[in-house]
């Protein structure tokens, strides 16, 4: 279980910074945490999805990615809880510019860190950005390229555009493909590095 980054998560209501880590997933511990803390917040009591990504069997995705592929599964842990996770493909992916780059298969913040929680203020407001920053760092370490590509769910497009990503095409399923090129990724990293502790970066 390798630690990737030491970061600070920003509490939205108080502005306080909370020390956290981005690390490789610990299948056993994190699956139980996902089930207990995260999963019940994704559905209402009638079993209806609250979010557009509610339907994922996250433990199965993590297990598959760890055991069957070379993908990296990274989680943000704070106070024993998983605050977000990402699954990153860092090999055998060629970007739209013809060069190898990283492909973000999944990126999700915990439900309590999402804007959709209208009644309650988000707990931490920078989990998505920290996950993207971690993807950039891992991409640099493994393939020496900080560019990222991903396919965005409709409700997440605003976030990715805000991070500097640009659409590169639309897939047949209607989803937009986004890219954060090398320069844009450095700019993005510069903006968020105040939340990253300079240990291994």
């Amino acid at each position, binding site marked *: 279980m390798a630690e990737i980054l030491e970061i600070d998560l920003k509490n939205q209501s108080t502005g306080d910074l909370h020390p956290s880590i981005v690390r490789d997933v610990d299948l056993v511990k994190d699956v139980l945490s996902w089930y207990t803390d995260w999963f019940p917040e994704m559905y*209402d009591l009638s079993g209806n999805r609250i979010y557009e990504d509610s339907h994922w069997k996250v433990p199965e995705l993590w297990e598959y990615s760890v055991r069957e592929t070379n993908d990296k599964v990274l989680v943000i842990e704070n106070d024993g809880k998983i605050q977000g996770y990402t699954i990153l493909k860092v090999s055998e992916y060629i970007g739209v510019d013809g060069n190898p780059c990283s492909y973000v298969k999944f990126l999700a913040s915990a439900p309590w860190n999402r804007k959709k929680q209208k009644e309650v203020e988000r707990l931490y407001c920078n989990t998505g950005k920290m996950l993207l920053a971690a993807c950039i760092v891992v991409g640099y370490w493994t393939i020496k390229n900080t560019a990222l590509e991903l396919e965005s769910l409709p409700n997440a497009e605003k976030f990715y555009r805000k991070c500097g990503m640009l659409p590169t095409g639309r897939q047949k399923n209607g989803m937009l493909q986004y890219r954060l090129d090398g320069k844009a990724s450095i700019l993005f990293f510069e903006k968020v590095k105040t939340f990253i502790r300079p240990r291994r970066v």
Partner: protein
Amino acid sequence: MMSKDLFTDKEKKYEPSASDLRDEFIINDPAEYVGEFRKFFLKWVRETKGLSKSIVCSKCHVSTNELDRVEKGNISEKDMMFLNKLADIYGLSYPYLLALFKLARRPQKFSAVKLAAYHATDIDEATQNKIVEFISKLKGSQQ
């Protein structure tokens, strides 16, 4: 838990897309998934940790039959000490394990109440609505 491939063959022509996940990775019914989860979790953890049944049984001083029963999700309050030992061996949070098997007597979190409601398969819609109303009041009073 595992499946052979993450995405359908049709979608492999394009870049993998989260929206094209194979059915095995999709929750169709959360209540059903809760039931499934309880039935496979402990066995899956033991196998993931590379522990044999005999090792776990000897550490917990229980019979293989008892371990089998617990791993199938047939757990009652009598098994709380056993779960405590399993939590130690597997490096898991004991309160989370109690919540998983509905043994937490006083749910302390909104999510725990919700999980308990998912487990109760005989709840009708009117009762669910009452629960939602109750939880909303509870959340309001906490804030």
